[in-house]
């Protein structure tokens, strides 16, 4: 070889060495297969994932160092590769942070971000694989204000971050549904962790909102609870959905309720889910709503009544007779697909 550097690569690497490395790689692959195929109960999931990552990194390193000869080759190549890897990991972590925008938990993720950076706990969610970024604890928080304009109400919370240079508290406002149990709503905003000390003393603003409206006989608490466990992830606690991804329930659900066939369509949508394109207020949505036939008749009725009377929807209803569990039961068991349920959608055009 004319270029002496060309010899760097295979100096000290013989067929025997390559064979040994290939055997190790094969053995690691078998171990990976074995621990998954014959899952041992005494290994926790966390340790198993950790072990799998270690094995994977080991294989990665063996191939890069010996098969790609990076171990003995010029540092320039290693430098290139390292920069590429660093950027890849950076993209990776950034994606994990970016993704949570727009959900209730993301408000907490954002509020917690300064703390996490300060304590060098690093990214959450993506790195853990399947985590949803809901923080475990609640930072030092003070209930600042509960506002109500008689139509909607919101809760403002001040967060004290422990960053030494930044003593400014972060202020976050949460919109709250206009009816229902205040404490339950606040607790759901806090990821179910509960905030007993802060909200024990419900204010006069809250008392102005009685449980439901007089003359309405439906279970508002069950409705809210069902909404917060089943619907809130997509349609959001504000009922606004996410533009382009998940349709809004504000106005939209009330409009559907008002037209003929709308009641049945709403029930079917919950029972059988939806699939296909639909245009709402000028925005086209083409996604999938999961079927929620696992909910009881009472839960379906309650959550629909909750939806059509919340966020100002009540004012839009021409008349309101709560949906009864019997109506839900009558529509069950038809085995519709999401696309078939969408065909039941009444037109919102016209008077």
């Amino acid at each position, binding site marked *: 070889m004319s270029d002496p550097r060309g010899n760097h690569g295979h100096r000290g690497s013989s067929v025997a060495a390559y064979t040994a490395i290939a055997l190790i790689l094969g053995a690691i692959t078998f171990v990976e297969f074995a621990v998954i*195929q014959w899952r041992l109960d005494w290994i926790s999931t966390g340790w198993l994932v950790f072990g799998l990552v270690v094995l994977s990194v080991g294989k990665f390193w063996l191939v890069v160092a010996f098969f790609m000869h990076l171990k003995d080759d010029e540092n320039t190549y290693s430098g290139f590769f390292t920069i590429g890897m660093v950027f890849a990991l950076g993209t990776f972590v950034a994606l994990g942070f970016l993704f949570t925008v727009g959900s209730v938990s993301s408000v907490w993720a954002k509020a917690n971000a300064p703390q996490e950076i300060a304590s060098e706990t690093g990214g959450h969610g993506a790195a853990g694989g399947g985590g949803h970024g809901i923080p475990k604890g609640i930072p030092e928080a003070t209930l600042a204000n509960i506002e109500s304009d008689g139509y909607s109400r919101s809760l403002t919370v001040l967060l004290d971050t422990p960053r030494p240079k930044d003593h400014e508290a972060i202020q976050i406002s949460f919109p709250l549904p206009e009816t229902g149990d205040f404490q339950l709503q606040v607790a759901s905003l806090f990821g179910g962790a509960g905030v007993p000390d802060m909200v024990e003393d419900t204010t006069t603003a809250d008392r102005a909102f009685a449980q439901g409206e007089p003359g309405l006989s439906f279970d508002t608490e069950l409705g809210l609870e069902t909404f917060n466990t089943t619907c809130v992830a997509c349609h959001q606690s504000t009922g606004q959905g996410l533009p382009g991804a998940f349709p809004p329930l504000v106005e939209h659900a009330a409009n559907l309720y008002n037209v003929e066939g709308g009641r049945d369509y709403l029930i079917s949508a919950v029972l059988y889910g939806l699939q296909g394109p639909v245009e709402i207020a000028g925005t086209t949505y083409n996604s999938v709503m999961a079927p929620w036939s696992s909910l009881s008749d009472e839960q379906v009725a309650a959550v629909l009544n909750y939806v059509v009377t919340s966020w100002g929807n009540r004012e839009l209803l021409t008349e309101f007779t709560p949906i009864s569990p019997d109506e839900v039961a009558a529509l069950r068991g038809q085995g519709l697909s999401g696309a078939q349920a969408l065909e039941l959608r009444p037109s919102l055009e016209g008077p």
Partner: protein
Amino acid sequence: MSGSVALEQVEHQPHRTGLPDLKLIMWLFLASDCMFFGTLIGTYLVYQGRSLEGPFPADVLDIPVTTVSSFVLLMSSFLMVLALHALRKDDIPRFRLWTFGVAFFGSVFLGFQVFEFSTFALEGLSLNQNLFGSTFFVLTGTHGIHVTVGVLMLLSILILSFVKPMSSKDAIFLEVTGLYWHFVDIVWIVIFTVVYLVEFA
């Protein structure tokens, strides 16, 4: 090889880095490809567990089958270093045998992927069925395209070796192809763990 004379002259010119251009360019490309796959794997992870409808990963992923295909790809990397080793020693018959072996093992891996994709399609998983389908097919499909390109590069070298005699002086071409091939292999090492194994942990 029609351009080998010209390329040899290029090889002999002085370089500011003192390193072969071809190899430097390949490493630069691999660095950029790192970021590319980093994005795809990151996207898969942030959408993991967010599919509203099935089929879900645990319904369709097949660990035994994928372990075999992963093993095949790993062993192709082994054959790749043997091929380069043989060419550097001017052992042309072995070089041809191992190079063909790498291309063959790569094709077997692709065969497994075709089998896997069609099985998934029959089970109702498509690119637009759910978030899992979208992110899984884009990630593994991109990797499959990389493997396909690698197989074509190897076959080209193999065919060229019959058209124009090759010697250890041409090892740089095989070495650079080998770097690409090993890179495709390490990407699969990560995908196999992140997408397949961790799902069942």
